């Protein structure tokens, strides 16, 4: 299984990636996640304005045969939701780190960022699976 892990992103053991831009975080699922799920055919995301606590389920990705919860890696308020990924769930398979970002949140506790995995931590974690 090929697993691209961009070095500038942070990761979780739930296979979400996070891109930190000041006090805003962009969140998506990793290449490993999309590959493990297979053809992604449905994405459900929250409305902008929703408050998320750390590790709260904020949405769902479904492949043809499976349903998986999305967990927020960080606490914050949803600023923006990617409508493209809702309308074209197959983007998750094609561009997991690019056009298939899921939500942007405004961080309520930026210190939580320190607990996220670096690219090499995540690579090491994948090798244990």
């Amino acid at each position, binding site marked *: 299984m090929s697993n691209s892990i961009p070095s500038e992103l942070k990761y979780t053991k739930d296979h979400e990636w996070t891109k930190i831009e000041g006090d805003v975080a962009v969140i998506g699922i990793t290449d490993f996640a999309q590959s493990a799920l297979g053809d992604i055919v449905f994405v459900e995301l929250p409305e902008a304005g929703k408050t998320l606590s750390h590790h709260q389920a904020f949405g769902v990705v479904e492949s*043809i045969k499976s349903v998986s919860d999305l967990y927020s890696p960080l606490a914050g308020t949803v600023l923006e939701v990617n409508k493209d990924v809702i309308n074209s769930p197959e983007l998750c398979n094609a561009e997991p780190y690019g056009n298939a970002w899921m939500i942007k949140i405004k961080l309520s506790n930026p210190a939580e960022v320190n607990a996220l995995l670096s690219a090499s931590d995540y690579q090491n974690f994948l090798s244990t699976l």
Partner: protein
Amino acid sequence: MSILKTSLHEEHLALNAKMAPFAGFDMPLQYSSVKEEVMAVREHAGVFDVSHMGEFYVSGPDAIAFVDFIVTNDFKNAEMLKAVYSPLCREDGTVIDDLIAYKLATDKVLICVNASNIQKDWEWISSKTANFNITLTNLSNDYSLIALQGPKAELILRDFGVNIPAEFPYYSILETVHEGEKIIVARTGYTGEDGFEVFSSHDYAKKLWSKLIFNGVKPCGLAARDVLRVEVCYPLYGHEISDSVTPLDAGLGWTVKMSKPDFIGKAALEAYKPKYQLVKLSLERGIPREGYDVLDVTGQKIGTVTSGTMSVVTGKGVALALIEKAKVPADKKYLINIRNTNYEANFHAKAFVTGGHK
């Protein structure tokens, strides 16, 4: 109990299949993409390893009479060299399993049963032989079973030199010899498409599998198989039918032949008032899954999704659901609850997809 492997297990690993336990076997869920595998079967051809399924032989002068007695469908009057789909019921009409019985000769019948029910079926069928002059043999470990499904399946098998008669309609069977091996070829399958199932030795199966893959036939896993059968609305044991329902609850009335003089479960099924009705529902958005609640427009729970998936062909979420008979809405308006939100469902009188089987 350790996990079982089919004779093609090495081949699945070599093809990088995602493997998962199913009915005690380590089986391929998917090889490439479920979408591609489903479309290969609908448009060209795909091949499945279904060797986990069980095979019993009934032989002896009463073979046909015995099978006719234990199944609800009419087996006795089926033509020679034909297959019959039927539930296998208890005296109270509940379903032990569903199976396909192949009429090979006046004194020889092959029965193919679900992998998850092999032991239960074997014990049940063995206990019913008293008044019949038959011998029952469990050959589940001796046979491999390959399903080649799709509109190109016939062409491929003929190209391989399998001696299929010119007239060989759906649900026909034959025993033949191919490359020195005795095989049974049946024009059956569970995808809704034309196709064949080949019962053979493990060695022959390995050769056939490799030849099919080498010739570009797409290997397909259990995930695609399930999507294919849900799209054409075929019931699956453990989902639409189970120990707790009768065939009459799950839209299988056509397989219960009250005109037969006697069969196990006849008296109970004659008197039975169905508790459930099986319905076909689809959603414009969202994917129904097994276990989700089905409601009427007033929000009252009236049933449960028994199988649900995204249909690859229609691009919509589709479901089979058992609805309490007394609560079936006359207006045919159904809701499906997904994660605490109710979605309006479309009611379908016919299957979501029309298969191309002949």
